[in-house]
């Protein structure tokens, strides 16, 4: 790769640095990313430049992607599991325009996957980076709104209020009632928000082969789960964490079962279901054999015994 090749890649976006961010911004981001990888689950503050995309629309993930992307990268962008959601399409268009990187909808071909609210069903591998967009990086926000105080609580591993919240849920409802963003303990040290992924996707972070980078542009914090790191949901030993129940749901497009489904309300009061992961669904439709998935067709998670209660 010569400098000429590199600058030619950026010619579509004349007047801007390669991949939009200037070198100072990229250097800062890369340093913060390295620090985040070195301290799994710890929120690292960063400057967070304004981008030509509205704040709160994936600018945190976008800054991380732009600081990682190169001309040889293959980028996949999804929103709610879908490659063709308008915001995912918009971000993908921007990344490709500013970096010249190739784009794909195939999870296995991508080197960088930027996602909002989902982890693909197919297992990610070593060498892949998953960039999750984060609206609220602070898992303690519901018990402590003040960011400076929450930071002290992390420093002190002061997570008693989080356990109390779960206990209160059990007392009132006999179960955990947290929906998405279910808090996790990373590497026995930091309580972390996995971003608003469904509980279904939480286990995919545990002992993963891939690197996960989570970035909140508006809140100016990024954090990471390096490959092969322990990630456990907060759960009492006698009341196991449970993922969303997909039992009996059959994808109308593919006939698939035991994957995370979108529920489609019907006029007659019933519901149909379709796979949330469109890249995976496309492979099934095209009879293109998909890669190994986190959950098999019977709903068993690939790390035996990780989920104490199988979906």
């Amino acid at each position, binding site marked *: 790769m010569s400098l000429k090749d590199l600058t030619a890649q950026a010619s579509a976006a004349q007047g*801007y*640095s390669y991949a*939009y961010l*200037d070198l*100072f*911004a990229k250097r800062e981001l890369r340093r913060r990313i390295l620090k985040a990888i070195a301290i799994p689950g710890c929120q690292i*503050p*960063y*400057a*967070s*430049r*304004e*981008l*030509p995309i*509205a*704040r*709160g*629309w994936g*600018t945190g993930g976008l800054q991380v992607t732009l600081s990682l992307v190169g001309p040889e990268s293959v980028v996949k962008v999804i*929103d*709610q*599991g*879908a490659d*063709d*959601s*308008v*915001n*995912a*399409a*918009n971000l993908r*268009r921007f990344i490709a325009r500013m970096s010249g990187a190739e784009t794909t909808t195939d999870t296995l071909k991508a080197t960088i996957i930027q996602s*909002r*609210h*989902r982890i693909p069903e197919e297992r990610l591998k070593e060498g892949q980076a998953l960039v999750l967009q984060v*609206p609220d990086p602070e898992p303690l926000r519901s018990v402590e709104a*003040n*960011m*400076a105080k929450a930071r002290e609580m992390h420093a002190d591993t002061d997570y008693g209020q989080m356990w109390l919240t779960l206990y209160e849920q059990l007392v009132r*409802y*006999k*179960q*955990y*009632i*947290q*929906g*998405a*963003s279910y808090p996790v303990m990373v590497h026995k040290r930091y309580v972390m928000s996995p971003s*608003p992924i*469904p*509980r*279904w996707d939480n286990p995919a972070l545990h002992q993963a082969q891939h690197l996960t980078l989570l970035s909140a542009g*508006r809140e*100016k914090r990024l954090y990471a789960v390096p490959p092969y790191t322990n990630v456990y949901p907060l759960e009492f030993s006698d009341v196991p964490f449970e993922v*969303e*129940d997909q039992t009996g749901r059959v994808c109308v497009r593919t006939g698939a079962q035991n994957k*995370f*489904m*979108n*529920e489609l309300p019907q006029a007659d009061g019933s519901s149909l279901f379709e796979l*949330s992961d469109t890249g995976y669904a496309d492979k099934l439709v095209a009879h293109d054999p998909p890669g190994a998935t986190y959950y098999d067709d019977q709903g068993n998670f690939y790390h035996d015994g990780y989920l104490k209660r199988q979906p």
Partner: protein
Amino acid sequence: MYIATKGGEAAIQQAESLYHQLKGQVTLETVRHIEATMPYLLDRVMGEASLYAPELAALAIAQTGGDLYEAVLLLRAFRSTQPRIAYAQPVTPESMVTVRRISAAFKDIPGGQVLGPTLDYSHRILRLDILDNRQAPAEEEPAELPETPAEAVYPLLADWQRENGLLEPLPAANPVEPADIPDVTRDPIMMPAPRAHRLQALARADTGGVLALGYSSMRGYGLIHPTVNELRLAHAEVMVEHPVTGVPFSAGRVRVSQAEVVSKDASGFKIGFAATLGWNEMKLIAASMLDLEMNSENSHPALSEDFVLYHTEPVESSGFCIHFKLPHYVTFASSMDAVRRVQALYRGAKATATEAEEELSS
């Protein structure tokens, strides 16, 4: 349809075209017209964008059809790509050309009250005659020129108050490298914020947001009862050192404004301060009151530094607000799963209770 299979990108472009249809073509003439006729709008946008560039601000306003949050975002996104090539020298009261300077604390002050440009004492009556094509609109009368020009430089009222022991003396100014000044556009804000971050954040805060929080302090949720000590509108030269000769020169002239409020506490008077690029009087009065409020102990949670600085950031607050339009059906599905589990449990409990009742009655 929300998601069109493979149609996402075409849909985006069509939607954008529809949006622009309402405002028509943007021409160089429109931009020039906005720049020439709407200085106060430009000042608001340039202040919130923290980018003094009237031409670009006019372009941003024209391009967004007057959606101010979008205009500020355009300027901020442009600003974040610009390198920092120099640091200007600090603007001092002696170096500014002051055109308006008033104090509510005294009837008269050293240097005098200078009313300058303001609508404060005008009758807010719509000029309907302008809409009436049948007669030539009455000219707005130009201001009369005085026989002797007004002073350009005025002393600070606070200096007189310091001399008289009403305000604490200023701490000795330590020389500081400009590059060492914390910069809110280059560092994340950590609480408690350095003073530089606080004043920068207030300077580029959302006008409406600062007003709402400032007003809540004024109206009764605050601890302080301030007086406008001094309010200034001025022109300032942006003095930078020539990169080769080292000689300071003016890179341009900008409109600036600053406000200072004072409030008494047990030990004397305390001062609150805010300044912006552009003339933004109302924002500054509210912001300087918030500055003072944030210094007071046990202020209302909604007037604490953490609360004020995070929630008056225009690009972040508006961006997050509109992001709720994005699909959230994964998180919603996850919530439905939790709700259905609880409902199933209660239905089960209800059924058991009904059975028990039936058993008793039988």
